[in-house]
């Protein structure tokens, strides 16, 4: 007997949700700290944290993050 149409739809939706959740888990696991600068014309440069300039960018960002504090509760 063929599955009921709403079952097919539910299976498909939950399949997409599982895929999305897995993508987010992978992204969280693999995304490392980064510092990216953009210039006019769309040019971008990455700076690693172990370079002098990259280190300074992370220090400056850290101060701003500390200043902003935690997200205010709704």
């Amino acid at each position, binding site marked *: 007997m063929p599955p009921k149409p709403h079952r097919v739809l539910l299976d498909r939706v939950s399949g997409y949700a599982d895929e999305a959740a897995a993508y987010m888990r992978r992204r969280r696991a693999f*995304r490392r700290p980064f510092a990216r600068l*953009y*210039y006019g014309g769309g040019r971008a440069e990455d700076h690693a944290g172990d370079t002098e300039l990259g280190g300074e960018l992370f220090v400056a960002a850290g101060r*701003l*993050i500390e*200043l*902003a504090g935690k997200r205010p509760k709704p």
Partner: protein
Amino acid sequence: MPDGATRATASGDSAELALGFLAEMSPDLRGAAILDGDGGVLAATADPERWEEDVAALFDVGDRAGEEQVEQIHIGTEQGEVFALRHAGLAAVAVTERFALASLTFFDLRMLLRDLAAGGDGRGRERDRDEADAS
């Protein structure tokens, strides 16, 4: 500090409204500031003096990285993310939770600065729609 090519003026009141609107639109936002062409804080979610110092330090490092003035800075750390943008003679900096959508955050900041520079309150089309609804 923001780009020297164009100098925009925006009032502190408009910037405050814009910041409130930004906080409303961005659930990941922890804090933000809007600065004028000289690097002075027009509006900030906390201690304006510290925002002024820390944003100046960030753009200073960014500008030393290349031969031209940096337009956008995006730094992601374990503790959160920092987005900084110069546009239309103004600057905006936002600190968000990790994994905030970068393109969306920069788009919101850019729209906000564009509207402020044009004499608005950062709400742009939203305000136009409200006014159209009211009339």
